[in-house]
């Protein structure tokens, strides 16, 4: 566990050594804030519903692909992966360390975004209960999305390729939800089952549903495992 935390600390810090994290977080918050408040004045009600609509979109493009693309791709390109792997650490410690560092970065972003509901609460009468549930949902969704980004970053040395693979996958998992209302039968059920949008929607309404939480956690576990296997595959190639 010590090794995992050592890697987490280094990885978290390295986010702030390049302008990418600052730029992506700042621009995303500005853009989401602009959309959120322009809707807020139209709705004229103390609700943060639009925030839970726009932030997941910002996760899909560009936040999660941008912050996960370099995680393994950069280490492979520069050769530092050989340092990590030949230290007395397990492959899964490396994967978990990078995952936790990125989740912490997204948590920072979510904490910063709390300024929106805080502003609303100063203007109107905001019920904070559903807001906290919505934030838990966002963190769960982010965790699943990060694990997918981590997986694609482990497949390639090219950050741009990792970015687009993650972007396309997350877009598909998010946008597929909009098809489910027009699709019936087995296909409709499958779409509802996998859709991030469908799974997050109850959280954004303040409903904590364990099934949805378990879904996001399962996706996270699956892709973390897949990333570990992908990393181990260097041994057999």
């Amino acid at each position: 566990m010590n090794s995992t935390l050592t890697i987490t600390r280094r990885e978290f810090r390295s986010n702030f050594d390049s302008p990418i994290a600052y730029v992506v977080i700042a621009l995303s918050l500005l853009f989401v804030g602009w959309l959120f408040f322009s809707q807020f004045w139209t709705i004229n009600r103390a609700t943060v519903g639009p925030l839970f609509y726009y932030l997941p979109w910002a996760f899909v493009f560009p936040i999660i692909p941008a912050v996960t693309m370099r995680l393994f791709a950069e280490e492979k390109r520069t050769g530092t992966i050989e340092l990590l792997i030949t230290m007395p650490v397990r492959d899964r410690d490396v994967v978990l360390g990078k995952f936790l560092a990125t989740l912490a970065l997204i948590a920072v972003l979510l904490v910063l975004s709390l300024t929106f509901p805080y502003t609303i609460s100063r203007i109107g009468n905001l019920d904070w209960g559903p807001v906290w549930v919505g934030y838990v949902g966002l963190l769960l969704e982010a965790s699943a999305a990060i694990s997918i980004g981590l997986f694609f970053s482990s497949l390639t040395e090219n950050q741009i390729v990792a970015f687009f693979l993650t972007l396309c996958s997350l877009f598909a998992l998010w946008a597929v939800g909009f098809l489910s209302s027009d699709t019936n039968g087995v296909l409709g059920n499958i779409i509802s089952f996998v859709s991030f949008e469908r799974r997050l929607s109850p959280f954004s309404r303040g409903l904590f549903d364990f099934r949805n939480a378990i879904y996001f956690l399962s996706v996270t576990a699956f892709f973390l495992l897949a990333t570990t296997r992908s990393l181990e595959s260097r041994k057999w190639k």
Partner: protein
Amino acid sequence: MATDVMIHTKDLTKRYDNFVAVDRISFDVHRGEVVGFLGPNGAGKSTTMRILTCFISATDGVAKVSGFDCFDEPLEVRRVLGYLPQRAPLYPEMTVHEYLDFCADLRQLPSGDSRKKAVRRVVEVCGLNSFYQKEIRSLSHGQRQRVGLGQALLHDPPVMILDEPTADLDPNEKREFLTYLRDIGSSRTVIISTHNISEVEFACSRTLIIANREGKGGRVVADGPVESIRAQGGTVRYQVGVGAGESGKLPGARELRNALAELKGADSVTEIGSADDKSVKVQIVGAKDADLRAELRRAVSDKSWELLELRRELPPLEDVFRELTLAEDRRDRLAAAE
């Protein structure tokens, strides 16, 4: 496995689809040996090192470090290893201090005086003091290489595997590092891969040469102390220095060369520089199983010159290396043609 065998490989093989990178390599390295790992590019040196450091797995065969199996006990192997890959693995955004601290954390060196001491030792040995607080991105190639070396030495490992560690060092840094390596080598086990044969002659007590056959992987073609490998070559060198003698006239280099080239068994005669204007020097290459010294003496006295110097010596390691690795290629090409 005997207790002082620190690295053991037996029939180590690595295959990639249709390509064999390493072909049944077997060798043991004992405590107190500094082994120079030589071979042409693509012979499988880095692949062998990567198997020993558990970065990749062998397709077949056994690899053990300090008694631990590289496949079954990778964490134990990595704990006793210090490894510097071909490309120094550095994080450019970190300072040297932060980087060594990060490596010490990963190695789980206990914090406190012992860690400070370990870092101080590495800073001194690798000469990191003048740029210890600088970001790695601002360092020169040589400085980066020294930082990479620093991380490999940080935990004072009993076994070190260094893949071209001196590639980016200047001649003074190289000599300092090799001297250090030779000094610590008496109590440790070191494998050092390099293309610089003089480094092997200077620092290594033993040399392991691998070469690849066409379309097949690298295999061991020579293994032993430098002197015994030099003896494996098929030729010897004669250094001949001649003065004017009774003739009263110092022969020209060409004249001397022509006179000695007529000798049976002298494969080639080359002029070499003389330290003064009172002698002329040539080097003759002959077959190892013949001794030309008596004929050389006679040929010089026949011309009434004076023999000032005559030495018969083994060929330099570089020539034997070329002979062994080229011979492998040629042998296979001939076999394929048949």
